[in-house]
């Protein structure tokens, strides 16, 4: 088990490294000169040269990337117009447009995104498994058809339209805003409840469908018939024996979805004005804030790789037949 995790961590590091080099190449070696874009319309050649040197763009690409990687482990200094900015390890670069180290920007955005995504996950995992199970039990009945019809309808509405509708019309919910959980848990939950419901309900629609399909398969298994033959209650047959087996495939989908949402809950965050990773990435993209973009891409790669590892490890707890090795 330990050896397995070690091997997986090593391979994870190499994946992240490849992502780092590839995104570096895409951004910094692109035909557009980032310094020119940052400088804008009324730009003097001196200003461009200044920006280039502050971003390190005047150095050869190989040195740029080693400097970047060194910064992650040892921290580095940035000179901008004569002033020196120190950036502590792990340093992912320095945002000139915001005047802050990228690491700090990410550290502010990550808790927001995690709060949004985890809260929504609680909603859709619970509701999805419950509704999916109920639909599977009543397969083919009017209530099953109604439930599946609504799920498909919700899934067919573009997410941003759905989120906008909630933001505009469901005004009974507290005004969305982010408060740190540590400073005020009640304000934290109140400010996020609209985002949770929006992201939660759309995903509940998908998870109801997944759970229903998984439960239909599970309820047709021989061990469910065995459970029934033991004379235990039907609820116990369905939830303890059936749902338990149906959860394993759901865990795989959940791991991938969670990774996707952690890096790109873009619509939810921007529509509800929550300063998370998605909003940070979007702003960086619009302003051509390369260091921030790089930081977001790198973080995304790490999240994806880590989530995959977590899913594999969780699998060994869900299914005793699975042994890592």
């Amino acid at each position, binding site marked *: 088990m330990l050896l397995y995790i070690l091997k997986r961590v090593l391979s994870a590091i190499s994946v992240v490294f490849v992502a780092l080099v590839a995104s570096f190449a895409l951004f910094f070696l692109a035909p557009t000169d980032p310094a020119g874009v940052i400088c804008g319309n009324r730009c003097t050649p001196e200003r461009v040269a200044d920006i280039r040197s502050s971003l390190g763009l005047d150095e050869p690409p190989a040195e740029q990337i080693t400097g970047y990687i060194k910064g992650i482990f040892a921290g580095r200094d940035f000179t901008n117009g004569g002033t020196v900015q120190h950036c502590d390890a792990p340093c992912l670069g320095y945002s000139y447009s915001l005047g802050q180290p990228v690491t700090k920007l990410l550290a502010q955005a990550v808790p927001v995104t995690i709060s949004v995504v985890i809260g929504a996950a609680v909603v859709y995992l619970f509701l999805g498994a419950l509704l999916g199970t109920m639909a599977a039990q009543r397969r083919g009945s009017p209530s099953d058809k109604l439930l599946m019809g609504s799920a498909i309808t919700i899934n067919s509405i573009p997410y941003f339209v759905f989120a906008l509708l909630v933001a505009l019309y469901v005004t009974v919910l507290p005004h969305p805003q982010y408060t740190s959980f540590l400073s005020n848990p009640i304000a934290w939950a109140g400010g996020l409840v609209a985002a949770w419901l929006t992201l939660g309900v759309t995903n509940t629609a998908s998870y109801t469908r997944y759970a229903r399909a998984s439960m239909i398969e599970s309820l047709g*298994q*021989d*061990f469910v*018939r*065995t*459970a*029934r*033959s*033991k*004379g*235990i*209650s*039907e609820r116990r047959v369905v939830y303890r*024996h059936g749902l*338990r*087996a149906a959860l394993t495939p759901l865990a795989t989908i959940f791991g991938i979805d969670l990774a996707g949402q952690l890096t790109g809950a873009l619509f939810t965050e921007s529509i509800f004005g929550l300063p998370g990773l998605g909003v940070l990435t979007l702003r960086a993209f619009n302003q051509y804030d390369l260091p921030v973009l790089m930081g977001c891409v790198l973080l995304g790669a790490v999240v994806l790789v880590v989530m995959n590892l977590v899913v594999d490890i969780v699998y060994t707890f*869900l*299914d*005793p*037949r699975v042994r890592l090795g």
Partner: protein
Amino acid sequence: MTSQTANQPRQAPVATPYLEVSDLRVTFPTPDGAVTAVRGLNYSLPLGRTLAIVGESGSGKSVSSMAVMGLHDPKSTRISGSIKVGGQEIVGMSPAALRKHRGTGAAMIFQDPQSSLHPYFTIGNQIVESYRAHHAVSKRAARERAAEMLNRVGIPNPRRRLDSYPHEFSGGMRQRAMIAMALVNDPKLLIADEPTTALDVTVQAQILDLIQDLQRDFGSAVVFITHDLGVVAQVADDVLVMYAGNAVEHGTVRQVLGAPLHPYAWGLLESLPAVSGEPAPLHPIPGSPPSLLAVPGGCPFHPRCEFRDRVPGAMCTTVAPDLVARTADPAHTSRCHLPAPDRVFASEILPRLP
């Protein structure tokens, strides 16, 4: 077309039957029409005796036994007739009473222990659940009982094996655990649905021995569903041959395997390859079992029967035969119009058997 059998003269059972099935009819409504998988089945079984139900897939042997267990979903099944287990009527029983019946009144072991045990729960956990479903005892006491049962079915180190998962057991051990689970509530009726089909031949014999041994100990009635006539010869006291949802022959194992009366039973015997001697060509039954959506009129077996021309008139295609004695032996019944089937068997079928 159906064949009703209300009047069947049968030898009075030696003891009061523990299981009594009369005019059982199980129908599943499907989009293509109602499928009647069991059509008017009658049999009874006293404690201490083993009945083997033999037949092809789709003959209704499993469906009828599931009805005895009360395992059919009432929403998608229509059951009529009567099933009495220990004097209690199962047909139309309330769900709560039916739940109590499952496990204590009757228990079932299934074909493939690999898929019939829950892969995510330990063996001990699954047996304890069965026991506690019917006994208000502590977890510790139930575990004690589970270990005792594992020991009884011949699993070494029972206390340690309680914590094993099914995949850590061999096929034979899994079936032993399944049997332990079925018997943990001491039911007086055990239904074994092809319990050895998924096992190695050597393990098969051990499991059959175990079931017989336990039957003697517990004094229970056993219904053995199988299509393996070798198994029938080893375990059964009585044999019921089923075809297209009904019994076509019923008698003791000596009667049915030694001198069968129904052409379908002859076909089953002729489909068996010989283990020793000259390799002779097999005589499989031509055709395939009828669709239960459109069971042939008259005798349902007539399209596949090579003896239908010997029956006077067009009886085979028009009149459904009753399950009655066809020879001097009143306890051996068959559902076939063919005159003097015992002589036909002795002169034509017996020489062909390997």
